[in-house]
């Protein structure tokens, strides 16, 4: 390891200060500060549109002009001949700035630009979404003239253009500040919109053949569903230019054939709405638009800003803990915006965090407790509404019976607040007397539980967003950051752009996200991650290693101080991989952070929602740890004796035990059975359970089997905290007034019915209870032992004999992970958002494609003994041979449910028989069977 002279922790280099004068005030700012920022610090507000602190300066709108004078070589302060854009010029020593406050020239320049901006701007503020919160409106009031001198013809455009099913563009409102295009290019890396045309017809747009004047006669998306009804008609009639000729002339026809071929090739980059994939972060452009040009389809024309009540909150869709703002009116959430939190999500959130909130008020929302009776044969009757008193009594009696019989399994799900998680954990141990508790509603392993107990639980804040941004190298070990932790991806991308972070991705192919991080693929067949990770441990010095081998580069880079390994959830199911990560970290000195997909998982680990863990990282096997818990919970007598020293069953174990009667009952939180590795088995198991209690927000497969359903509050109706993957506590208050109970209160009441005090009767009590039992200071749980991967088909095996998918037969190793936008119930009810999801495809390498007789665009069937998934093929460059990838839980591609398979399993792949037509035709017939 290289020796570096590191500065002591916490020491920050003093920025060099620069003295200057602004509006007669002498001040000092750090070197490199833009004039406009320096003015802000002194309380001088310079109007602006294109300027944004997180984007590179553009100097396009010219609204922020100020007068600047600078000392020449002799030290005489000389005014610059022209007013300068304060958003592009940094403060230099001795500079004298006069803003509109003190300079008539700057004031007139600003008034002049404002007049020009307003000249072509429509006066539709009364119907514009931005009206009331519009920087143009506000600054026109403060810096504009009262009347216009413009009496000529305004520029107009047909409106609106749909940039995606979610984002609409009203071009006549646009002031062409380029914030949206700069965001898309600089921050998200999805340049799905750009400036086009020029001069007064310059406009923001996506690649739209109609607007650019070489449209095809058809819509091109095949299903006519390329937007919601109100957009389709307008975009069809739309052109941005004077008519350039008949669109159906013969020459056009010829051009269109070529265009279709090109479109088919890039179909993998198509979204579910039929347009080219835009971005997972496009909603941020709506928020930073300084006018009402960009609007979200779901909020458009729904409300006025001044009617909304805004509440800060935390997003529930991933483990990043993004700060958001919830805007509601009369008990209904109308929109969500990104909050500002420089240490976590800066000012950006994913589209899922922004738009996917309707699930919380979906029609299938549970509002009263439900109870069902079973007949003597055990067959279930219908669920019927019940009072809380009755439901709690029935539930308590049933759980008590099951507890007394073979015991109760606890499946709380991964989306709980830490207060809820803590109550669940305590309920399992104190009330049900079991360690058969596991929050993981996904592929998992005992090895992962050991990894979490050893390396994650009770470690407090580990790697932070800020450290990640400055890390010299980051290995994404089984993590697709863009799909699974959106703002983490953005922060990584910032690191790549600003600090030269090198990103390596352990995956079977370089995803779009990895490509946008300028990342290097460290190829790995699913299931062989442990072998590949072990290969990175020592310096790769094998003389046969070709120059530029990604493994050698990764191995070298991880040795740099500050390097980080990010572990994603799909590593859990890859045998030996979690252990291999820890060994790699020990060998290279890299730090490890675990980034689960679900918002509650880190908090759940801290609360002990694992079969081997008590709260605070306490091993269940450690007597001292159990003693601390007993003391903190004030347990005595029977309750104290219930704390078991033996690790319990994990999710799969609980399901298995239920199916054969080794457990008599279960209490289940927000678990989707389709998310489990074998949903059919889980359905059978829960069906066989003697007694089933469900705590749910909405009707689900579990509630359909439950004997008692206790309705609980969605995040928007309750207070709580998530622990994000950093280990940072992200607390939020209830946005809406509600009588709905959070999980911890329902469990508290249920425990009371069973004669126990859970100490979680109020949000405050629940919150304090978490803090009362701090992190474990005793010996940590041991690291997971090294496990041999089930097969070592990766590059480590020199001969491909016997390896699936190498051409001998039609088998391939399944690779899969979840997309940010897919079939998840958290996105229910948001059709505009759903249209921006990536269209599901089957990915194979070109070698594997030829071996399997597949080609780009044809329909392929991925088959197991359980079922088949049929999707169009996207031959993927640089993909590992012998592997087939499909999305884990997207529309038409429910891997666990349909195939009963998990990544690493061997599946069969063949061309779909049904697709007899041409390649292009078969794509247009749709993505799902």
């Amino acid at each position, binding site marked *: 390891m290289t020796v570096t002279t590191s500065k002591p922790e916490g020491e920050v280099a003093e920025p060099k200060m620069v003295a200057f004068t602004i509006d007669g005030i002498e001040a000092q700012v750090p070197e490199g500060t833009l004039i406009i920022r320096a003015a802000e610090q002194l309380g001088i507000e310079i109007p602006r549109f294109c300027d944004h602190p997180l984007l590179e300066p553009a*100097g396009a709108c*010219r609204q922020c002009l100020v007068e600047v004078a600078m000392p020449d070589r002799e030290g005489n302060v000389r005014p610059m001949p022209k007013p300068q854009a304060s958003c592009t010029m940094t403060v230099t020593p001795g500079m004298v700035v006069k803003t509109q406050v003190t300079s008539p020239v700057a004031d007139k320049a600003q008034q*002049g630009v404002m007049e020009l901006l307003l000249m072509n701007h429509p006066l539709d503020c009364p119907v514009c979404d931005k009206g009331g919160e519009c920087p143009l409106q506000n600054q026109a009031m403060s810096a504009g003239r009262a009347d216009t001198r413009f009496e000529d013809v305004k520029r107009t455009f047909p409106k609106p253009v749909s940039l995606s099913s979610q984002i609409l563009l009203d071009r006549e409102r646009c002031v*062409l500040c380029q914030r949206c295009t700069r965001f898309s290019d600089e921050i998200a890396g999805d340049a799905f919109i750009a400036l086009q045309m020029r001069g*007064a*017809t*310059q406009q923001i747009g996506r690649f739209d053949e109609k607007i650019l004047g070489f449209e095809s006669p058809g819509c091109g998306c095949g299903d006519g569903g390329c937007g919601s009804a109100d957009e389709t008609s307008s975009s069809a009639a739309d052109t941005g230019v*004077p008519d350039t000729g008949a669109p159906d002339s013969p020459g056009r026809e010829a051009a269109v054939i070529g265009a279709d071929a090109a479109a088919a090739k890039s179909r993998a980059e198509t979204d579910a709405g039929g347009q080219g994939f835009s971005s997972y972060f496009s909603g941020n452009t709506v928020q930073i638009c300084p006018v009402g040009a960009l609007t979200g389809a779901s909020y458009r024309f729904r409300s006025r800003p001044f009617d909304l009540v805004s509440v800060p909150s935390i997003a529930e869709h991933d483990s990043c803990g993004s700060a958001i703002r919830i805007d509601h009116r009369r008990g209904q959430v109308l929109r969500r915006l990104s909050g500002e939190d420089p240490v976590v999500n800066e000012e950006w959130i994913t589209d899922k965090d922004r738009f996917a909130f309707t699930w919380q008020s979906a029609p299938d929302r549970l509002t009263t407790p439900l109870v069902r009776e079973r007949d003597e044969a055990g067959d279930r009757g219908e669920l019927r509404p019940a009072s809380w008193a009755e439901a709690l009594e029935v539930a308590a009696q049933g759980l008590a019976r099951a507890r007394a019989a073979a015991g109760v399994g606890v499946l709380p799900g991964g989306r709980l607040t830490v207060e809820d998680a803590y109550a669940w954990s305590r309920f399992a141990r104190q009330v049900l007397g079991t360690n058969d508790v596991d929050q993981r509603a996904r592929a998992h392993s005992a090895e992962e539980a050991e990894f979490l107990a050893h390396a994650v639980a009770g470690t407090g804040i580990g790697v932070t967003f800020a450290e990640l941004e400055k890390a010299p190298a980051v290995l994404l070990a089984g993590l697709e950051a863009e799909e699974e932790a959106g703002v983490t991806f953005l922060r990584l991308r910032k690191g790549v752009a600003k600090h030269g972070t090198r990103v390596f991705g352990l995956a079977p192919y370089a995803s779009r996200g990895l490509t946008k991080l300028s990342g290097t693929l460290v190829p790995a067949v699913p299931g062989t991650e442990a072998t590949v990770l072990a290969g990175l441990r020592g310096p790769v010095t094998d003389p046969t290693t070709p120059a530029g081998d990604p493994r050698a580069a990764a191995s070298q880079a991880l040795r740099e101080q500050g390097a980080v390994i990010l572990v994603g959830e799909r590593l859990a199911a890859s045998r030996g991989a979690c252990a291999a990560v820890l060994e790699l970290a020990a060998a290279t000195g890299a730090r490890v952070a675990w980034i689960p997909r679900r918002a509650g998982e880190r908090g759940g680990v801290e609360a002990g929602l694992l079969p081997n863990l008590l709260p605070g990282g306490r091993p269940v096997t450690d007597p001292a740890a159990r003693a601390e818990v007993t003391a903190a919970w004030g347990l005595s007598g029977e309750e104290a004796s219930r704390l078991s020293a033996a690790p319990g069953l994990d999710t799969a174990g609980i399901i298995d035990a239920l199916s054969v009667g080794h457990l008599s009952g279960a209490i289940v939180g927000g678990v989707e059975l389709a998310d489990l590795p074998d949903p059919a088995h889980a359905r059978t198991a829960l069906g066989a359970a003697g007694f089933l209690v469900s705590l749910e927000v909405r009707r689900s497969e579990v509630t359909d089997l439950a004997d008692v359903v206790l309705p609980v509050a969605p995040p928007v109706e309750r207070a709580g905290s998530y622990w994000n993957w950093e280990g940072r506590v992200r607390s939020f208050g209830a946005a809406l007034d509600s009588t709905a109970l959070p999980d911890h209160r329902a469990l508290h009441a249920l425990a009371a019915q069973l004669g126990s005090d859970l100490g979680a009767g109020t949000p405050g009590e629940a919150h304090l209870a978490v803090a009362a039992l701090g992190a474990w200071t005793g010996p940590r749980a041991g690291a997971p032992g090294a496990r041999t991967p089930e097969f070592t088909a990766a590059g480590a095996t020199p001969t491909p004999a016997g390896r699936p998918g190498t051409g001998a037969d039609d088998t391939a190793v399944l690779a899969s992970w979840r997309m940010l936008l897919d079939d998840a119930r958290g996105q229910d009810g948001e059709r505009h958002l759903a249209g921006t999801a990536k269209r599901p495809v089957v990915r194979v390498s070109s070698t594997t494609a030829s071996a399997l007789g597949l080609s780009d665009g044809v329909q392929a069937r991925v088959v197991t003994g359980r079922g088949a998934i049929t999707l169009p093929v996207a031959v993927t460059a640089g993909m590992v041979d012998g592997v087939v990838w499909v999305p884990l839980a997207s529309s038409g591609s429910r891997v666990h449910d349909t195939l009963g398979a998990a990544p690493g399993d061997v599946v069969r792949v063949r061309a779909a028989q049904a697709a007899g037509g041409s390649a292009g035709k078969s794509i247009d017939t749709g993505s799902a069977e």
Partner: protein
Amino acid sequence: MTDLLPVLTDTWDAPRSWRLSTYEKHGGYAGLKKALRMAPSDLVQTVKDSGLRGRGGAGFPAGMKWGFLPPDDGGPRYLVVNADESEPGTCKDIPLMMASPQHLIEGAIITSYAIGCNHAFIYVRGEVLHVYRRLLEAVAEARRVGYLGTNILGSGFDLEITVHAGAGAYICGEETALLDSLEGLRGQPRLKPPFPAVEGLYARPTVVNNVETVASVPGIVDRGSDWFTAMGTEKSTGHGLFSLSGHVTRPGQYEAPLGITLRELLDEAGGMRGGKALKFWTPGGSSTPLFTAEHLDTPLDYESVGAAGSMLGTRALQLFDETVCVVRAVSRWTDFYAHESCGKCTPCREGTYWLKQILHRIEGGEGQDQDIDVLLDLCDNILGRAFCALGDGATSPITSSIQYFRDEYQAHIDGRGCPFDPSASALFPYTPRTPMPSAAAASGQLVGAGGGGH
């Protein structure tokens, strides 16, 4: 009395003047042979000593520009020749490249050698396909005899020249927009700093010079900086192409030392066409403020023209006689600027859109009394507020024409129309297009840009 002085134009009347053999027969490539025996730094000094100023309009000293390049760090550095000649009235580079392209090629080789460039680019305006072809052939000719390629003339110096055709945008004559366009991006000006000398093409040190500037280098090297400084004035040395167009008896290229006057040039060109009186003229293209007959004796050098309130620009002398309506002429120029505004910054994009409409109204007889003041105020809000100099240029014809011909504007407003007969200024009978602000308004068509120009 200053006489014409053919240097760049010397061989234009030779048979097949564009051929390398013709060029060599007249002493071509002597400069290169001499240059390759000199140290690059001496070459830069020679050009500095010659006082050669950029011939593309701004007049920045070429040697000084070369000297701004940071010290060699081993990475590539580039010469980019700006051949995107698009200014209304400017027509010197295109005939030069047509008639004697080897002047430019030799100049580009010497300049590249002086600044340590091994790959030079010539960015040619896309509309002039014939020039593009001629340059491609000229580069191929030079390559065949070893003036380009590796180890040029045994000197160890390597150079490739890529001729690139633009897609037809005035803005791409702005050097940073040109670089973006050359890189395959949308042609819009870049934020400066960093300047091209530090981060230009592909973020590497880059010199961007006009065609005529580069073409002037071989002569300076061959004959010495003293030969060059002997021509012109103290601060505006050397020879330059003066492009006379409009109502002149013999329009065309007149090469003369800087400091010659229009009166002298008119004598060479046979005077105003048909003996009519000169009404107004541009000294350096449409972006330079107008002159009138009172400026006939203003020496055409950078300092004198600047002192008289205009700019030498590209020495594109467009002459307009008494039959021309100045409002109409300015309105057409403004159409051009509105059409060619790149759209990046508010003042130029929106301002030209508005200016165009006001001028069309005035010309069409729908002007109002306050329009002239609005025009002037609008120009004040554009000049110096736009992102690049092209916005500034759009205001020059308007402000200068109002300065000299305010009464004529007022006459359009008072008389509800144009007092001139547009066909009187043409050599052939024609029916002028009617300006139609009202018609455009009624049809809802976009009149600001895109709709005009052609």
